[in-house]
Each structure stands twice: as C-alpha cells, then as structure tokens.
C-alpha cells in the first residue's frame, strides 16, 4: 500500500533552464552560421534576434516557474530548439530567394513575429487554464469549433486552393496577411472533443462483440462514431483534396479510440476503413488518383515534368540525396530549388544542408517531444487528461510521420507541415498551444498530491504512473464527477 512519501518531487525547472541554454545556442548558432555562410559575416540583426528568442524562451520559462512549476522540463527546450532551427533554415532560404530575385523573401521575419505571437499565446494558455479538466466542459463546443474550422476552407471567398489542396483560408491580420490552415487549430479542438467524448463512452465502446480470426470485434451497433469519423475524413480527402489532414484526423481518432478502449480491433477496423476508402477514392476521383500515381511513379519522366506532377517531391529527394550523410552545411546547399522549401519541404531542406545526421537528430527531438507527451499522459490521473495528452502527443508524432514520410516518399505527399519547424503562422500557433497544454497537463501529472487532503494518497514520487497500481485508490481532488480510472494496468495485465 502506497503511503505518503516524504520524498520531494523535483520540479525540474533548473534542469529546464540548462536545456534551454542548449536549445537557444542551437537556434542562435544556426542563425549566425547561416549569415557567415551566405554573406561572410554575422547577420546584422544577430543580437536583436538572439535577444528576442532568449526573451521569449525565458519568459515562457518564468511563466512555467510561476504557474506550472512541476511541468515536464524537457518539452519547452525541445520546442524552442525546433523553433529556433526552423527559423534559421527559413532565414537561410530567404537569402536564396532574395539572391534569385524573388520579391517575397521575408519569411524569417514573419515567422519570428509568429513565434512571438505563439509563445505569448502559449503563456496565456498556461496562465489562464489552471486545470486542464476545465476543457472537458467544452467537449461538444470543441466539436462544433473543430468542424467549423475544417469546413472554412471550402467557404467561397475565404478558402484558397494552394497546390491543389483546399485546406487554406486567406486571412488579413494587420499586416500579417497570409494563408491560414484552420486544420492545424482544428486538431486541438478535435483532441478535446475526442477525449471528452471517449472518456464517457469508452466502456460501451469497449464491450465485446463477436470474435473473428482471434480478434475481439466491437459490437456492430457501436460502430457509429468510427463510421462518422471515417466519413468526415473521407470528406476532407474528396472535397479538400488533402490526404494529410484526412489522415491526421482519422489517425487521431483511431489512436484515441484505442487508448480509450484498449481494443486492437478498433485500430484494425480503422486502418481497413481508411485504406479501403482511400483506395476507392483514388480509383473513382481523378485528382485523388493522380496524386497516388504521382507518388507511385514519382521518378518517371512523364510525372516529373507534369503539372501537377512529382517535380517538387523528386526535387526534395534530389536535395536530400545531395546532402548525403553530413549535409552541405548551413547556406551551402540549394534547398531553394524545391518549391515551398521553407514550409512543406523544410524537412528536405534540413536533409540537404544538415545531412542525414542532422535530419535524424531532428527526428529524435520530435520523438523525445512525443514520448514526453505520452509520459505525461501516463502520469496524469484523470481519464480525460490521459486521453487528451495521449492524443496530442500522438498527433505530433503522427504529423511528423505523415510529413517526413511524404517527403521521403514512404507515403503519398500531403500538404501538412512539420510542427514548429516549418514556416506557417497557423501551424506554429497551434503547436505552441499544444505544447502549452501538454506542459499544463504534465504539471498536474508530476505535481505531488496535496498532503493536506485527508485521503490515502497514491505513490506520487518520481514514478507517477505507479499511481495507477490496481490496489491504490485513485484520487480525484477537484471534480467529483471525474471518471475514476479503474481500468488501469491491473485489469489487463
């Protein structure tokens, strides 16, 4: 029986500060190297730039000390490192665009402004949202918001078609006009909705139905929600012509469904539904089929020269190949040869200039981020928090998979961008908010239980997951209605 442990939980804020210094030196160092490689001298604004980045990161760090002292100490430095490296690459691509006489070559400047806005918003989320469980109240509001956001790009006059995908809206925000990908924000809304919805219905959904080939299928009558999600994602694929968003939402839903029910059959059903639906869409709808053909025959000359064709994809492959193992070095490659080198194809740009080594290092950063998120989910005590954190961590990992998989031609190319790394205000904003939410949940996951409470406490030392040992009484300190997780490891293992 776990008792109150006198062991003091280390908040980890000092460790975070140390890691932040490392992350910031990565970002500003890269920025300086770009200047040295392209112009032969340090960028003129290196001090202002570094000061800005440092101020933003330290500000966030201080907010954490103030409002979420037990938050995971690795998440913020990882995000800052990714954001900083991305900024350096965008800055570097600006140089190439300017050298080629392209008129718009201030992506880095705009990305820096968006970074500032995003960090401030993340801080606001951390300050305003004291307990993530508050979000559960907005389960159905979140659903409506998510759906509206998804449909926005289809609204005439508002939506813009870029690269054949109708997933953008044109926005004008006082000088910061640009395209906005509502789906990026919608994924947060859907994560809230799925978590809130599944946490109440998971017991029903987990009820056993017929067995088939050793697989415990759900009851047919419970298939409704997954079919609905499936239809919605197919709708995105067909009407917005975007495999990425479609895959992202369906993946998020199936992933969270699995988390909630522990039924592998849901994953199998989901995968089959999606693959089947995508295959049918590819054969029936010409433009979807073309995208698959482009993927399958990317290196064929007829697709390489065609428009829409595989020129961009193959250009990215060429860039990555020319980077080889160790890359050309900052500013020494030609990432600008690939269209959208600063956003959709920033991964290829990284592969070219930082090499396979650098790209793998970036992937490891994302892996660390996703795993810290999942760890947070394991640590947090309430079902909603588990689902929500798990879903968001998974969506980051899944988005990386879809983007990097697309660029390396493992799967068809999509219009998604790399979280934190790629140019794009909506993406940056949404992902910083996700980071803030994960930090918020991790704070409650790692925070030692209030010793003032007169009930038996779970073992809440550095191994918070043990709180779910079957013999311990789960605790719910604030919301009496919170579903108590009795279905932890004990019931299955």
């Amino acid at each position, binding site marked *: 029986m776990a008792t109150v442990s006198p062991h003091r939980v280390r908040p980890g804020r000092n460790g975070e500060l140390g890691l932040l210094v490392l992350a910031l030196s990565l970002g500003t160092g890269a920025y300086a190297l770009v200047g040295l490689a392209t112009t032969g001298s340090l960028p003129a604004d290196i001090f202002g730039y570094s000061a800005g980045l440092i101020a933003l990161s330290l500000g966030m760090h201080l907010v954490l000390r103030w409002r979420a002292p037990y938050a995971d100490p690795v998440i913020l430095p990882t995000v800052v490192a990714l954001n900083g490296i991305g900024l350096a690459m965008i800055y570097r691509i600006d140089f190439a665009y300017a050298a080629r006489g392209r008129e718009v070559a201030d992506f880095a400047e705009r990305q820096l402004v968006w970074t500032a806005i995003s960090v401030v918003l993340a801080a606001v989320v951390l300050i305003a949202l004291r307990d993530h469980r508050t979000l559960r109240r907005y389960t159905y509001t979140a659903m409506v918001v998510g759906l509206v956001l998804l449909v926005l790009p289809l609204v005439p006059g508002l939506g813009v078609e870029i690269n054949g995908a109708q997933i953008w809206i044109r926005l004008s925000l006082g000088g910061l006009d640009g395209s906005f990908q509502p789906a990026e924000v919608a994924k947060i809304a859907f994560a809230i909705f799925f978590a809130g919805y599944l946490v109440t219905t998971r017991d029903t959904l987990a009820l056993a139905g017929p067995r088939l080939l050793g697989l415990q299928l759900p009851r047919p009558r419970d298939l409704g929600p997954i079919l609905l999600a499936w239809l919605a994602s197919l709708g995105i694929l067909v009407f917005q012509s975007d495999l990425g968003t479609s895959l992202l939402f369906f993946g998020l839903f199936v992933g969270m469904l699995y988390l909630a029910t522990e039924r592998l059959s849901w994953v199998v059903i989901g995968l089959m539904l999606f693959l089947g639906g995508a295959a049918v869409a590819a054969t029936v709808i010409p433009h979807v089929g073309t995208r698959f053909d482009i993927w399958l025959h990317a290196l064929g000359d007829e697709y390489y020269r065609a428009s829409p064709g595989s020129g961009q994809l193959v250009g990215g492959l060429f860039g*990555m190949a*020319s*980077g080889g193992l160790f890359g050309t070095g900052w500013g020494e490659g030609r990432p600008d040869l690939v269209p959208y080198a600063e956003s959709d194809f920033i991964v290829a740009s990284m592969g070219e200039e930082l090499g396979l080594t650098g*790209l793998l290092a970036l992937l490891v950063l994302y892996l660390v981020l996703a*795993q810290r998120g999942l*760890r947070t989910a394991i640590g947090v005590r309430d079902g909603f928090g588990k689902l929500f954190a798990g879903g968001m961590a998974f969506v980051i990992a899944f988005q990386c998979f879809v983007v990097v*998989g697309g660029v390396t031609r493992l799967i068809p190319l999509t219009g998604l961008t790399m979280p934190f790394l790629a140019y794009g205000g909506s993406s940056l904003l949404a992902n910083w908010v996700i980071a803030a939410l994960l930090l918020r949940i991790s704070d409650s996951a790692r925070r030692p239980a209030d010793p003032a409470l007169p009930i038996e406490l779970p073992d809440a030392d550095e191994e918070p997951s043990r709180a779910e040992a079957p013999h311990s009484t789960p605790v719910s300190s604030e919301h009496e209605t919170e579903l108590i997780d009795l279905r932890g490891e004990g019931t*299955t293992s």
Partner: protein
Amino acid sequence: MNTPLRRLATVVLAMFGILVGGATWVQFVQAPDLNADPRNVRTLYREYGNHRGPIVVAGEAVASSAPIDDPFGYQRSYLNGPLYAPVTGYYSVVYGPEGIERWMNTELNGSADSLFYARLQDLVTGRQPLGASVELTIDPVAQQAAWDALGDQSGAVVAIDTTTGAILAMVSKPSYDPNVLASHDMAAVTEVWAALQASPERPMENRAIAGRTYPPGSTFKLVTAAAALESGMTSDTEIAAPTQLQLPLSSSVLRNFGGAPCSSTGTTTLADALRISCNTAFAQLGIDLGDDALRAQAEAFGFDTPLNVPMRVTQSRFPADPDAPQTALSAIGQYEVSVTPLQMAMVSAAIANGGVQMQPYLVAAVRSQDLTIVQQTEPTQLGRPISGGTAAALREMMVQVVESGTGRAAQISGIQVAGKTGTAQTADDVAPHAWFTSFAPADAPRVAVAVIVENGGSMGNEATGGAVAAPIARAVIQAVLR
C-alpha cells in the same frame, strides 16, 4: 489506460524507426542514384562550381566554360553552336547534359577514375581543379563543308575515316544553338526547350545517329550485293532483270525507277544492276538469296547491334521475319528496313577498308589540365562483314555507279569516287528521301561519307539520291582530301 499508452509509445517509436529508415534510404542508399540522375540540377551546380574542361576540335575549343558571377560560377558556351550541336550536345542547368557533354561528363567535370592522379596533383599543389579536355576526331573543314552543302535541307551527313573509324564529320539539320540551352536563365531555357521539342522539324534530333531511322532505299543494295557475292556470285554473274516483277504471294507489281526496263535482254550482270540501281533485279536477287542470308549480311555490317561512339547509336534494323514479297522489298531497302546515316557510312567504310569494319569513334583523346594524355582512342576492328574479294568487287561496282551510273554527280576530277545512290520512298504522298553513301579515293580509300536529304530536300518529288545527295558527299570528300 496506461497499457495502451505504453503500446502507443512503442508504436510512435516504430513510426520514427520507419522514418529513420526512409531518410536513410533516400540520403544514403539511394543517394548515389539520385545524384547521378541527369535531372538533379544540384549535381550540375556542384559541377559548375568546378571548372569544366573544354571540348576541342582541331585545337580549338568548341565548348568551354568561363567564370561568371552567379550561383553557378561558370557559364558554358559553344563556338559555332548549331554546327557542332549534334556532337557536343548541350549542358543545361534545367535538362542536364546531352551529347559528348553527357557521355564524357565525368572526364569533362574531372571526376572520372582515369583522372584520379590529376585530382591528386591538384590537391597537393593547391591548383584550381579543372576538368579534362576532350579532343574530338571531327575535321572542322569537312564539318563546315557538310553543313554548307546540306544548306537549308533537312538531313544528315556522316564522314568516317575508313582506316581508323574516326568520325570526321557529323552534321544534322535543322540544328539548334546549345548556347541558348546552356543559359542560366531557367525560365528562358524552359521556353526554348519547349519550342524546340514542339517544332515539327525536330531540331534536337541527331539525325546522323539517333534520329528516327530512315529506310535506306537503294543504298541497301550494297548489302544485298555483298550477300550475293559472299554466296559465290561475281560481279559478272547474269541475273534476271525484268521490267516488271510480279511479287510472289501478292498482286503487287514492282517496277523500276520511272518504269524503265533494266536491260533489253531481261538479264543483266550484278555490276550493271547496281550501276543503274535496278529494283527488279535486286528484288529477285533478294528472294533468291532469302531473308536469312540478307539479315546475316546486314547484321555483319552492324545492323541490330548496339553501338556507342560514345553517344548511343540507334540500332539499324532488318525485319525479323519477312515473307517473300517483304524480302523482295527489303532487298532494295524498303519495307521495314531502317538505318541511321552512320550505319550506311559504316557499310561504305567496310567496303573501302578491304572488308574490315573499324569501330567508329568521336573522341580522339582526353587530356588533363597539364596536357598529359589520360586516355587515347586506339582504332579497333569491329568485325569483318565481307571478304577482301567481295570488298574489291563491290568497290569496282561502286566506282561504276559514279563513273557511268546513277551517282555521276559525285565525280571529282582527279579523284576516283565509289558510291551508291538511294531514293527511298516513305509514303505515297511524301517526297522520297535522297541517299548517297560513298568512299574515296577508290584506289586508296581514306574517307567514307553517307548523306541523307529528307523528303527530297530542295528538289522535292523530283529528287533522287544521285541528284540531291551525291553533290553533298562530293563536297565533303573534297574537303577531307583537300
């Protein structure tokens, strides 16, 4: 919910494992192939960062690189671009290299294995690396003569040294200016490229070796005659030469040019049949020899055999399984027989060289920066398609063609020219292609020349090989033997 979370963490790990695999596949395993892809302009950029070696014709650089202040570093330019375009090809930042630029790419950019010591020297001495220079076998006077003689007509001229196989002239018209394609203005290059590709005149085809192959027409009678001689006939053997030949198994009737009879007696000697290019006699001869004998002879001359000079040469073809009337038509170079001008020059060259066929080649030598020869082409024997006796008989017959037959327009005072005309039908409503393949001097051959003028050139339907193509061959022979 922790068990599925842990499993999900494993799934996430696996997903990243797959991504690591994908990235490694692209950047490590597949990277050499992707970098070698001619569409990968980054490879070009890297190469432009090096000083590319020149392509040299008779001591003068017809393609060379000069420093330029743009991301590429060097600008490739071509002297007499359209004249040498079929040989040099182009070096485009958008479409990659073609021609010698492509096939000698590693020598020109200095990355060839043979240049290893040169690179090592550059490294040790700190000398700015420079690609090797590629020296061609082209004779600029002959090249210019062929270009001028062809005039505004579409067609091709190939001249080869009969004793070595060295290609002395290779002209294809209409041509294009590789300077435009070598421009660093990608939009302009793309536009020009599209226009060149769309042009019905197909200026980017190297008609001499790699265009759409042509029916050889009567020039193929050399091959048929060679097969006949090899089968034991002599140039004096009397063969049937009807005014009309009823083709077996069909209602078609084959006539001679202009419907004229070949002889008053209905028979003629093999030599005379070749001299006046008698269709009926050679068609009957083809039927008598059979398609297998014809194909064997054609293949001995290089038909249906891969060849690089170093550019890849389109294979000339003899039909695989013709029936009797098709064999008859094949024997006079019609039906599905198709050839490159280089192939017909090689037939003449083999006859001129006493039956020994030499490997044709364009690159004489490769020299590194300090002018040491790193690679030199030694003439090599490709094969022996005909015996010395057959070669001598054919040479005599070809001399007759020029002296008193259909090829009189190729006569040069003081030099004995041997040749064979051809007028190849392609379709009923299109003017025929005019052919001439030849060598000179007949007694001590030095050069073989093949000429094709598409669709009769300036003479249109009135064109014959003797009238249109023979004078061009004569001009080239004169230029070589000057």
